[in-house]
């Protein structure tokens, strides 16, 4: 079975968009009724832990991109990081502890994403974090070989 990245991005984006709208609608306590009124079935609220994992992924990606811009990272590595950045909205922000050289940093973040994949609740997020981890391991190998 091949998993569609596009499918996730739509699904993941949906989770995040719903999360963004949840705040306003929950405040009025009319979330489910409002959604049903416009013909949309209520979406389960995303797990808070999952949102934290996504925020951490975004912060680490931004830190790696900053590092890549100050080094001579291979173009495919930069492209991977940019696509990871697109996959996690900027509204989810956390702090990153990324440090060291580029290859080591990519590997450390790959390990973190793999661990996060084991901790995530949403199966969509589990798959994306696991896939991101594999892509970051590839980045580490590419930088080390450059």
């Amino acid at each position, binding site marked *: *079975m*091949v*998993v*569609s*990245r*596009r499918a*996730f991005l739509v699904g993941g984006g949906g989770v995040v968009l719903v999360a963004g709208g949840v705040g306003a609608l929950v405040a009025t306590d009319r979330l489910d009724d409002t959604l049903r009124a416009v013909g949309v079935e209520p979406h389960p609220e995303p797990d808070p832990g999952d949102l934290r994992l996504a925020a951490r992924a975004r912060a680490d990606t931004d830190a790696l991109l900053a590092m890549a811009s100050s080094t001579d990272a*291979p173009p*495919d*590595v930069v*492209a*991977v990081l940019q*696509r*990871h950045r697109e*996959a996690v909205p900027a509204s989810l922000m956390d702090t990153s502890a990324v440090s060291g050289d580029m290859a080591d940093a990519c590997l450390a973040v*790959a390990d973190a994403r*793999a661990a996060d*994949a*084991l901790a995530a609740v949403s*199966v969509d997020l*589990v*798959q*994306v974090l*696991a*896939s*991101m*981890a*594999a*892509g970051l*391991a*590839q*980045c580490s*190998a*590419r930088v080390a*070989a450059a």
Partner: protein
Amino acid sequence: MNGMRNSTLLAWLALEREAVWFYPFAGARVSGVADDARTAAASHRRTRDRLLSLVKDDTTTVRPSYDVGTLDSVDLDSIDAVSIAARDLEQRIQSACLAVVASSDGDDRGDAIAGLRTASLAEIAWSGEARAFPGMRD
């Protein structure tokens, strides 16, 4: 055993069996990749054996997705040709691992995440470029 978990594990196992067959074949055809192919075959053999220990059902129904005749028709006559075929195989293993990630939990999920990384690094080793989401369709 969860049916979905079982079917995804069997799909991964089938690809590992294909790899165990493919790499020695490629190494025999192109001497320039013989050492790398031998190393790859040993790695896939370990993974195959690990998966066999996880799959409790009758695995005699699992067959490599290439039979000998099909493999022989692939033009494995150069290092580039072997690299392309190897990257394709490793990408299919990535997809299979990601399916296991989705259908399992606990140790199985951990094994599949590790397998996804191993296949992704193998893809790079066969002259691949880094990809954003290994195992997912672009």
